[in-house]
């Protein structure tokens, strides 16, 4: 029936009564009687219209009672009218035609009215239903709009919607945040209004490609309301209705990392330019002016100053500068006391940095700086050979935080200026003294000479004799002079003299050889001519310019070395392959730094300890092939490269012609034009890798500054190689994960199709249903196996066994449904061990894969940060977590998952742990001293909850003997039959009671405790626990290692190594019998590796390492062959019937402990431990050494 949108409470009781259908029908049927009554009363007035009041009855009954009640009422009314009013009244009249007609008309009309009303009612109902449907549709559309609006609002990237004219009509809150504007401030603006002006010209091109219907992704800079520029990545598209939609992402962080690298390159380039400036300029004033501009521009500051120290009165004068008000440069002075920045800087070797003068306590600013409104400054002292010159400073009116690189830069710039000023000072001295010839002869080393052409008579002043290293007054001639000239310059000098005789000016610089020493001389001469124009005599000067030349060369070399360093760093940043990198670096050293030859030698661990050439550049002409360098302590190994590798020290040969170390190669080296050389060690991960050798055509070419630069270059190179290796290792790991993933996917696909087949079979052959079920069961089991394999291969690292001062054990009991529990161990240098324990929300293969992905992102972030770190500093756990999170958070949010995780860095030397807890379970820390436990927590969110989350790190002190337990919530959430959880208290109790056991036993005890508590082996969640014991670091008394090939003939070398190593130990440690036993054990272990692990291949390597501690001697054999599993070999009856299989029993009987493990480089290892005698005596009967 009809429905009304109005609520019933709006209506009066009577109307409500009418709403009930039955009531209405009765009412409709009563109406004819009511009206018959009324008509009866009014009959005298109405007479003779019998049907008068019955027509309205028809209408009203139909309206109130509906079609059928209306018709019934009509018929009742007809009967009543017929009986009551059609004459004769109160009786049924006779059948007269006129009565029949009127009655028929009445009934007919009544039925028609009823039908009409009914149709009206239907139409009314239909339209109401249509209206209702329209309302519902509207409602749904509104919901959808709300959802879209919500998505739009909550997106983490800014979303900007513009109309076809490019005016913004909508923007989400992320967009407002990005621009720090309100919604209203953005509406009506266009993209052009948001970006910085320099980006505007690029717009036209973007518009074109947008109009072609392409999605345009590009980087722009937005200007925020507060003027800050924000780099963003914009993905724009014109959607189907012509509106423009842009998604804007803030890429400030990405830019910052790029900028750091760029800044470094820029600073180094600037130093190279500065060197060039210093070198080219003769006039210190102008060079200084250029230098301050260069320095100010490089550091992007408004002010730069060079202040010179004046002795009387002691003050600093502004010699050159940029940004100062007119008239200050050359005049302004600053007090030289240490209460001012400048004076303070003079006393310090390091650059002085002031971020904000208001917060500065060490000194104040001079009036010069105060008057210019300076807020931030950085200054470095300029020193010359003759002492302090002054101060180089940069200043800004804005608050600036100068970085360490920038501080290093200003110090280097000051050093270059110092060199330049020093050079100019000596030339100045020269110029003033030239005016007085007598003094010049003595002071400036200028001598004069006289040559009579006709008689070939040559006269020298005393100074010339001194320059040429001859006793004053000795007989000289032009030929004698010529023979003293350097052979390479002789032709040129002769030619110049001949040209001078025929009229050219004579002004040359050349070298002379005096007493095995090369000196530079400048010669100038005037010719006297006779009447015919023929030259009869020459009068000239000879000036010793050796010092100046040396200074120039020094500057040139410094500039070249700097440029080489800068180029090398650029190459390092881009390098992808080790051999290419080394070759490029060699090329740069020869081409940029101008050395004659350069090569990189790798130290080979073969019998001869040879050095192989892995990169070379320059004029070499077969020299390297001929010289056959080694690094053993023999004649061939005592050259620069051999010594350098052996001692790990930079080795310089200043004069190759005379140095005894070069004896085996001298003649070849001189033939190739080498005069001096330097070899710098290349160390990777504290291991010597080889050496970088550079040969110069000049003797004594490497001064201290240059050696420092080259050392820096080689350390950068070492770092580069290490980085490449990490990258390669990482790529390999990633490849492995990809392969496993692909394999898994394949298997899952195959399994899915198998399942389908099984299902079909089941439908088709009901009799085989049981068989099919069994097959399904097996398939499920196999799927579980896949999960288990993922967990074992990808999620769980074996705990490291050889971290100094840390004992680590881990245990993970997987459930039937795989959990995403994982742990990672990363061993760093200097005893740092990173342990990551994580738990992915959810179960099954997706959780396992997500765990693997999380793990990969952590490794990727770590290696990226390490590659980026210029000094090789280990990135902080917090940085690693933040970077990994930034990469994975979107994916986790999209997958509606999250990861709880605990990142711990342990260091036994520093006795500390750094912890980043991302919503994980915390760590139980057992204090050995007090026997108490506490749970260490952080308060960070899990990964994947919020983008841009800041993760906090905390540091906790530890003492030797302390124990740390990392665990997953499967431990504390394990429940018994009653439903109680195992809980943190029980776990802590367990650690307190059993914490004195070794970590491996402790994790086993915890496992057992949980089994006892739950009364079952079937767990709901994965059970993961990692226990780490911090120990006193034991420093080896002795350490040595060798590498042998997997050739049985090399067994003797292994034995000799052990003999020699033990012979070098205090005699109280092991006696002869014990040493023999250890030798035999090593022999057996090595022979096993050769025969079994390497399957008889004789070209593989085995590294043998000997370590002696106070209580024991440990020999470790490392190899890359198959790991040995002791339990796989059956025990041998020593009955003399078998000829083989004796090795293993021998091995175990010869030493006190045999351990098999895998080290952090993936090598299989066998560690053989022999306890020293006094330690055995002391410990007789008690448990052996804990290791």
């Amino acid at each position, binding site marked *: 029936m009809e429905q009304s949108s109005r609520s019933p409470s709006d209506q009066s009781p009577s109307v409500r009564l009418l709403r009930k259908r039955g009531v209405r029908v009765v009412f409709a049927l009563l109406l004819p009687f009511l009206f018959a009554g009324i008509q009866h009363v009014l009959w005298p007035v109405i007479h003779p219209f019998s049907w008068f009041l019955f027509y309205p009855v028809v209408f009203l009954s139909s309206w109130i009672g509906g079609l059928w009640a209306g018709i019934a009422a009509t018929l009742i009314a007809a009967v009543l009218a017929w009986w009551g009013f059609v004459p004769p009244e109160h009786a049924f009249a006779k059948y007269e035609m006129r009565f029949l007609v009127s009655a028929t008309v009445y009934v007919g009309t009544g039925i028609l009215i009823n039908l009409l009303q009914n149709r009206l009612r239907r139409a009314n109902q239909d339209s109401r239903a249509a209206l209702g449907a329209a309302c519902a549709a509207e409602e749904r559309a509104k919901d959808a709009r709300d959802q879209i609006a919500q998505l739009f609002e909550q997106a983490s990237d800014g979303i900007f919607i513009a109309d076809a004219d490019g005016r913004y009509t909508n923007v989400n809150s992320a967009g407002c945040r990005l621009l720090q504007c309100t919604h209203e401030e953005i509406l009506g603006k266009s993209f052009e209004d948001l970006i910085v002006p320099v980006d505007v010209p690029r717009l036209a091109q973007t518009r074109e490609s947008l109009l072609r219907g392409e999605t345009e992704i590009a980087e722009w800079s937005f200007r925020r309301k507060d003027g800050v520029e924000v780099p963003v990545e914009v993905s724009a598209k014109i959607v189907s209705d012509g509106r423009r939609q842009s998604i804007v992402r803030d890429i400030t962080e990405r830019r910052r990392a790029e900028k750091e690298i760029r800044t470094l390159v820029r600073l180094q380039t600037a130093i190279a330019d500065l060197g060039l400036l210093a070198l080219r300029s003769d006039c210190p004033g102008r060079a200084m002016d250029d230098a301050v501009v260069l320095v100010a521009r490089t550091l992007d500051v408004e002010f730069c100053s060079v202040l010179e120290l004046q002795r009387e009165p002691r003050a600093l004068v502004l010699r050159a500068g940029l940004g100062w008000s007119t008239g200050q440069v050359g005049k302004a002075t600053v007090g030289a006391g240490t209460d001012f920045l400048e004076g303070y800087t003079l006393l310090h070797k390091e650059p002085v940095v002031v971020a904000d003068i208001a917060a500065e306590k060490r000194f104040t600013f001079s009036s010069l700086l105060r008057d210019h409104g300076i807020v931030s400054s950085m200054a470095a002292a300029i020193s010359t050979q003759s002492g302090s010159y002054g101060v180089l400073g940069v200043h800004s009116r804005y608050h600036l935080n100068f970085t360490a690189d920038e501080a290093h830069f200003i110090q280097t710039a000051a050093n270059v200026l110092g060199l330049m000023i020093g050079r100019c000072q000596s030339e100045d001295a020269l110029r003033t003294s030239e005016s007085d010839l007598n003094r010049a002869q003595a002071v400036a080393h200028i001598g004069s000479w006289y040559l009579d052409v006709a008689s070939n008579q040559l006269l020298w002043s005393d100074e010339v004799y001194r320059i040429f290293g001859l006793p004053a007054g000795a007989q000289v001639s032009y030929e004698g002079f010529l023979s003293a000239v350097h052979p390479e310059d002789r032709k040129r000098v002769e030619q110049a003299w001949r040209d001078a005789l025929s009229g050219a000016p004579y002004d040359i610089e050349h070298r002379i050889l005096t007493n095995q020493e090369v000196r530079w001389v400048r010669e100038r001469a005037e010719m006297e001519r006779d009447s015919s124009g023929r030259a009869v005599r020459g009068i000239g000067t000879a000036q010793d310019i050796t010092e100046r030349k040396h200074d120039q060369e020094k500057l040139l070399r410094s500039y070249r070395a700097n440029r080489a360093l800068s180029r090398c760093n650029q190459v390092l940043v881009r390098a992808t392959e080790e051999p290419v990198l080394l070759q490029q670096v060699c090329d740069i050293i020869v081409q940029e730094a101008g050395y004659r030859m350069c090569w990189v030698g790798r130290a080979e661990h073969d019998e001869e300890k040879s050095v192989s050439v892995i990169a070379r550049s320059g004029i070499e002409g077969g020299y390297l092939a001929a010289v056959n360098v080694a690094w053993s302590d023999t004649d061939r190994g005592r050259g620069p490269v051999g010594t350098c590798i052996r001692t790990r020290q930079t080795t310089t040969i200043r004069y190759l012609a005379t140095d005894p170390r070069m004896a085996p190669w001298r003649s070849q080296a001189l033939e190739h034009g080498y005069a001096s050389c330097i070899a710098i060690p290349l160390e990777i991960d504290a291991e010597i890798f080889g050496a970088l050798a550079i040969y110069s055509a000049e003797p004594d070419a490497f001064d201290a500054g240059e050696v420092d630069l080259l050392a820096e270059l080689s350390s950068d190179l070492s770092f580069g190689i290490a980085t490449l290796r990490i990258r390669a290792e990482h790529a390999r790991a990633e490849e492995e994960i990809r392969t496993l993933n692909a394999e898994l996917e394949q298997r899952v696909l195959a399994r899915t199709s198998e399942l389908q087949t099984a299902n079909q079979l089941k439908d088709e052959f009901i009799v085989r249903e049981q068989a099919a079920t069994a097959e399904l069961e097996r398939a499920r089991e196999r799927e579980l196996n896949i999960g288990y394999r993922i967990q074992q291969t990808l999620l769980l690292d074996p705990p490291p066994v050889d971290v100094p001062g840390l004992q680590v054990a881990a245990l993970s009991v997987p459930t039937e449904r795989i959990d995403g529990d994982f742990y990672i161990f990363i061993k760093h240098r200097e005893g740092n061990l990173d342990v990551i324990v994580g738990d992915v929300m959810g179960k099954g293969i997706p959780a396992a894969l997500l765990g693997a992905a999380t793990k990969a992102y952590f490794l990727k972030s770590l290696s990226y940060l390490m590659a980026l770190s210029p000094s090789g500093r280990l990135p902080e756990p917090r940085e690693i977590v933040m970077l990994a999170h930034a990469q994975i958070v979107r994916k986790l949010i999209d997958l509606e998952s999250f990861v709880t995780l605990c990142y711990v860095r342990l260091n036994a030397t520093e006795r500390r742990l750094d912890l980043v807890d991302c919503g994980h379970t915390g760590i139980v820390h057992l204090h050995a001293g007090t026997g108490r436990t506490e749970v260490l927590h952080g308060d960070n969110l899990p990964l994947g909850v919020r983008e841009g989350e800041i993760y906090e790190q905390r540091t906790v002190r530890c003492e030797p003997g302390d124990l740390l337990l990392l665990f997953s919530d499967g431990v504390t959430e394990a429940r018994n039959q009653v439903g109680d959880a195992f809980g943190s208290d029980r776990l802590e109790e367990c650690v307190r009671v059993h914490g004195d056991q070794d970590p491996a036993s402790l994790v086993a005890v915890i496992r057992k405790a949980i089994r006892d508590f739950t009364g079952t082996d079937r767990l709901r969640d994965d059970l993961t626990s990692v226990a780490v014991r911090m120990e006193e670091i034991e420093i080896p008394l002795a350490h040595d290692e060798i590498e042998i090939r997997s050739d049985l003939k090399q067994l003797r070398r292994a034995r000799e190594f052990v003999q020699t190593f033990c012979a070098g130990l205090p005699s109280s440690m092991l006696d002869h019998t014990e040493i023999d036993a250890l030798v*035999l054990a090593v*022999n057996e272990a090595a022979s096993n590796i050769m025969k079994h692990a390497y399957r008889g291949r004789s070209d593989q390597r085995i590294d043998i390492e000997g370590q002696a501690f106070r209580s024991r001697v440990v020999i470790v054999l490392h190899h890359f062959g198959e790991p040995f599993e002791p339990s796989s070999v059956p025990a041998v009856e020593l009955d003399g019937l078998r000829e*083989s299989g004796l090795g293993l029993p*021998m091995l175990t009987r010869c030493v006190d402990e045999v351990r098999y493990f895998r080290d952090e480089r993936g090598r299989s290892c066998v560690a053989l431990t022999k306890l020293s005698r006094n330690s055995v005596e002391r410990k007789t009967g008690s448990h052996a050494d804990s290791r």
Partner: protein
Amino acid sequence: MQIAVDKKDDVVVARIPVAELDAANSNEFKHDIAPVLESGDKIVIDLSLVRFVDSSGLGAMLSCLRQMTAKGGDLKLSGMSKQVRATFELVRMHRIFDIFDTSEEAMLSFKERRG
């Protein structure tokens, strides 16, 4: 290796000419001692020059003993250094071999048995 052989009466004394008998040369030893083992029923292997024996060397010795026992002969060892003896004792092989201080004593032991 050149194994020096000295035959007195019916006893063959073979002197091993190397200081170290290890996995590198034990096969060579087995090959070179074979004709000596063929040449008689009473063999003495003189180890006085040997300073080191490893499991492979020991295995080679066991192989010699088995060959001799198989053909009804006898093998004795002599001249072991302290270190080599320790190696034999380590795996209880001193109970399986007849070991004498000198080759003379070993030869005498053959005669005594005959007497």
